[in-house]
């Protein structure tokens, strides 16, 4: 039996990038400490704020909600949860009740915003339309753009001061690499622990950004939280290739993910000098903030012969 480096109990995790073994209790304590440190270091939350947390029902967002509820209790913040129901049969319909049940057990108000009600089509239907029209766009493009837009709109309608998402270290490093591969300076520049306030946008915060995906999963499992662990049926494409590459790199060379993140964080101030500032406008179709005449969601919907059906999103 291998023992925890710190307390001598049975080890549950080998944190190879730091050369230490952790037992269940020390892993839980360590994750909670990193979460608090991220909030303090990057000033992600202030006392008395109203925080909306995006909760899918997966391990990351459920862990984030549990961590936030404890933090908000101490800092006198108010927490509400938002789930985007994209309409992915056999996937989201299974995770949504888990999100709802976790929010209920924590006493958090929980709001559901659906693609079907807002856009008139589920993601499954959108993907079928996209295939029929040969748009050559990947399901993650539709899902990512539309989900982000709805999350922002819902958080704003709920009067949130901050929108917390459960992006972990792996998510952030994958996004960095993806934007490198695509040479997308603008999107690369937007990455970071928080996104500054701009008109129409609720500032986003990522308190799990410096916690590896495996540690977030272990935190949820070791705490016995109810989470949805199924794989999204639309997983694939370049995102998956980059994820697999990074996981192989980390397995062979522990600490690689943190090094990529650290390098990016040091380069980020330089990026500000080459990414032009853009003027914020209102989308002609839906009124949401955008840098163009119409927002990306409306542009994607138009390409499919769809449009936003309703402007107020919130339902229970």
């Amino acid at each position, binding site marked *: 039996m291998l023992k925890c480096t710190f307390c001598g109990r049975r080890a549950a995790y080998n944190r190879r990038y730091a050369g230490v073994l952790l037992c269940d209790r020390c892993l839980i304590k360590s994750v909670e400490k990193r979460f608090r440190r991220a909030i303090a270091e990057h000033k992600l939350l202030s006392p008395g704020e109203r925080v909306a947390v995006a909760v899918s029902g997966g*391990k990351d967002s459920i862990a984030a909600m549990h961590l936030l509820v404890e933090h908000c209790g101490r800092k006198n913040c108010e927490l509400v949860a938002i789930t985007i129901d994209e309409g992915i049969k056999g996937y989201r319909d299974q995770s949504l009740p888990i999100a709802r049940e976790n929010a209920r057990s924590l006493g958090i108000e929980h709001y559901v915003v659906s693609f079907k009600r807002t856009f008139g089509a589920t993601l499954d239907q959108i993907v079928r339309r996209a295939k029929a029209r040969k748009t050559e766009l990947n399901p993650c493009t539709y899902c990512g753009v539309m989900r982000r837009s709805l999350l922002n709109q819902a958080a704003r309608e709920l009067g949130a001061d901050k929108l917390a998402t459960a992006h972990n270290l792996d998510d952030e490093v994958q996004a960095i690499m993806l934007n490198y591969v695509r040479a997308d300076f603008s999107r690369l520049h937007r990455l970071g622990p928080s996104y500054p306030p701009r008109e129409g946008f609720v500032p986003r915060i990522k308190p799990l950004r410096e916690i590896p*995906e495996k540690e977030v999963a272990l935190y949820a499992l070791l705490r016995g939280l109810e989470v949805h662990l199924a794989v999204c049926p639309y997983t694939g494409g370049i995102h998956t290739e980059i994820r697999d590459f990074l*996981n192989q790199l980390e397995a062979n060379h522990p600490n690689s993910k943190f090094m990529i993140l650290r390098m990016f964080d040091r380069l980020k101030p330089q990026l500000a000098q080459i990414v032009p500032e853009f003027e914020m406008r209102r989308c002609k179709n839906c009124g949401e903030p955008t840098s163009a005449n119409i927002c990306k969601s409306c542009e994607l919907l138009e390409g499919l012969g769809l449009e936003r059906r309703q402007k107020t999103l919130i339902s229970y």
Partner: protein
Amino acid sequence: MTCIKIVVKQVGKRHKRELRLAPHATIADLLRKLDQNRETIVVRRNGKIVVEEERLSDGDLIEILPIVTGG
């Protein structure tokens, strides 16, 4: 030298598999054999989450939980 016999259950797959491994084999050896990246899974040995460097024993039940779920 006699082999050890273990049962492997990969969560999300229906069937359990019985595998024979060399004595003193570790969970990490098993993962290599199954072509599983340790970054993407959590391992339970007889119901307990353990580190991949633990040595396996005859009769162990190993559950492999995939943790990478998003797109």
